[in-house]
């Protein structure tokens, strides 16, 4: 199936959401480390 611009946009959006979610996971990990250390 050809990949249309619509699919490209959807993929870019999904990747952006994935990046935000992984970023939040990393962020909460480091916040926990900092809070436990203080």
């Amino acid at each position, binding site marked *: 199936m050809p990949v249309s*611009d619509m699919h490209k946009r959807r993929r870019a959006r999904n990747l952006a959401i994935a990046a935000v979610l992984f970023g939040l996971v990393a962020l909460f990990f480091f*916040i926990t480390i900092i809070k436990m250390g203080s």
Partner: protein
Amino acid sequence: MSEAAIRNEYRSEDGAYEASVGDYIALLKPRVMSLVVFTGLVGLMVAPGAIHPLLGAIAIVCIAVGAGASGALNMWYDADIDAKMARTAKRPIPMGRISAENALSFGMVLSIGSVTLMGLAVNYLAAGLLAFTIAFYVLVYTMVLKRRTPQNIVIGGAAGALPPVIGWAAVTGSLAIEPLVLFAIIFMWTPPHFWALGLFREGDYAAAGVPMLPVTHGPKVTRTNILVYSLLLAPLGVAPWLMGFAGVVYGTVSVLLGVFFVCHAVRLAVRPGDQAAKSLFGFSILYLFGIFAALLADALIRGGL
């Protein structure tokens, strides 16, 4: 390709438009965000005490995301008037690139997320101030004031003036006179900045039915008000130096910027026209960046970098 053809190209099977990541970023009003982030960062940097660098960065990200969320909620509520104004007609909702419902959800998720993260990672005072800022901008400015009174941006300016207070609270966990002076500077800066914009975009605001001062009271009254606010802003801008929490570097820069601001306002008053209004509008942005950059430079110099 025509706009209609582009829209069809990006529609999914159910006919819904597939918004790009860029469309969602546009909802966050990135240009407004840059000024908010910068003033918030300066509030954080000049505050006494220390904050873990990562927690400081999180505080700034929360301020940025909270400001963006306010922008998205503003675009959700104001889509009807945005569509009528040339300056805002190309925003994602009036263009049909994002539905109003999606913008509302996006804004709410980011609002709740940024306030929650600020509370968990930084402190509850900063989180409370961020929540108040978002609520004030959306509920008081956007929903109540904007369409009802020419004092809309005067009172609504309080929301845009709070970021340095939030930055300060993120470090100290408390409030003090210093961040409130920074609040007052931005609060006093907002009306001349937006009234200058209103002067050369008067037709836009009139068409959309937004009661900006140039629309309700005419350009002459607006120019006088701009001059009065500029005369109040100039000494207020010097206050951090006079009150002793900024040094001579800041004092010199703030005096010069204040004099230039008043000169622009006087020029607009005696030689009215779009060019003078645009010139003051452009300078007002430079003024605010200059004032806060000088405050930051001063704090870094006095702190031995």
